[in-house]
């Protein structure tokens, strides 16, 4: 007798259906079971002839019985009619147009890897790169980028070798897809980084300033290089030019009007020696180089 290893089409179809129904089992377990079933089905087919499924019943029932007898877990969906949504999803998954979309799966494999890294970074409260907003700082931005690349490589590797329809894979993918919610929410609500400005900020100081330094006293000199005293200064709008900080010094020699009102725009400001009511050095002034003035004095009306 010549070896006849060719499997009749109806037997191979039946086996494929049984295999599909056992899709959630670990591959070694499933292969062991099918290695047992296949020769037995061929034996039965060659002996009894006739339709395999007519003799053995629907492949799904056969698989369920096999699984149960082998003491393997029975998936929940076998216990009752499948929810319509699941049936519709299966039908959709078999649609050729959807099958075509599966060619885009590698894009998802990269995306899920990124989502996982981003979600871990969010959970760990990591900061994010300012320049490349999508890169989390895992120590450094470079390490973050490296983690994303490593996760993407692992994800693609897994994507290439795991069966697509396995429940565990579908479930894991759904969980990863769910991670998109916190990650996208983070990008939506993140505060744009505030530019750190290092140049000095102009803050108006009260009173008189020169190059940003407060002026605390003014020493007027005549063109004959003589220090003037009690010179009243006014601005162009006629406001007295006061040095506000000095007004509160109790030792300040404050000029008063005949009616007793304080005059605070008299320069140079002088200070009494404590407890004396006397200015010790009325002619004291900073060392200044008064230039010789060549311009004739203004002709003033007498």
């Amino acid at each position, binding site marked *: 007798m010549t*070896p006849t290893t060719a499997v009749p089409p109806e037997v191979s179809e039946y086996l494929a259906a049984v295999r599909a129904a056992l899709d959630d089992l670990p591959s070694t377990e499933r292969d*062991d079971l099918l290695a*047992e079933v296949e020769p037995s089905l061929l*034996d039965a087919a060659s002996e009894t002839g006739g339709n395999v499924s007519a003799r053995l019943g629907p492949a799904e029932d*056969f698989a369920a*019985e*096999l699984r*149960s*007898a082998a*003491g393997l877990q029975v998936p929940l969906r076998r216990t009752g009619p499948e929810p319509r949504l699941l049936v519709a999803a299966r039908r959709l998954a078999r649609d050729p147009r959807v099958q075509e979309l599966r060619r885009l799966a590698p894009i998802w494999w990269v995306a899920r890897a990124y989502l996982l890294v981003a979600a871990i970074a969010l959970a760990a409260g990591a900061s994010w790169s300012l320049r490349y907003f999508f890169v989390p700082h895992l120590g450094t931005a470079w390490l973050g980028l490296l983690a994303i690349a490593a996760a993407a490589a692992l994800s693609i590797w897994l994507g290439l070798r795991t069966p697509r329809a396995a429940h565990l894979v579908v479930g894991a993918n759904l969980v990863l897809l769910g991670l998109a919610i916190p990650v996208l929410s983070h990008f939506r609500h993140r505060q744009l980084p505030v530019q750190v400005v290092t140049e000095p900020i102009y803050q108006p100081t009260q009173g008189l300033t020169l190059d940003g330094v407060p002026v605390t006293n003014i020493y007027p000199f005549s063109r004959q290089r003589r220090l003037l005293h009690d010179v009243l200064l006014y601005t162009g709008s006629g406001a007295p030019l006061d040095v506000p900080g000095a007004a509160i010094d109790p030792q300040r020699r404050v000029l008063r009007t005949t009616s007793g009102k304080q005059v605070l725009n008299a320069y140079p400001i002088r200070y009494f020696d404590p407890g004396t009511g006397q200015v010790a050095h009325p002619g004291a002034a900073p060392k200044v180089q008064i230039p010789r003035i060549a311009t004739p004095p203004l002709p003033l009306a007498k």
Partner: protein
Amino acid sequence: MDVSQLLRGTLDAAALAVVAEQDGYGYDILRRLRAAGLAEVGDASVYGTLRRLYRAGALTSYVMPSDEGPHRRYYGITERGRAQLEEARAVWAGFSRALTTLLETNVEVTP
């Protein structure tokens, strides 16, 4: 109650008894079980049971080339399988005695 329900708890012992008698492959064991009177035993139940007994160490297995098709996986009984079979025999003897006594007693069954 039909035979298939009774078989559920006793298929392990039946399969072990068949293999203890002589090593066999899946379909051969199925045929011998049916020939012994268990006509209602399901194909998938037998194949699944054989795999489970093998995993549990009650059966050993080896592959034999076949002229008629793919290689066949033969099962033989192990020491552990024999012990399990002995235990099942004792349990079954006691159980069947008790049930026989019960069922053969003329008891009026009121619905």
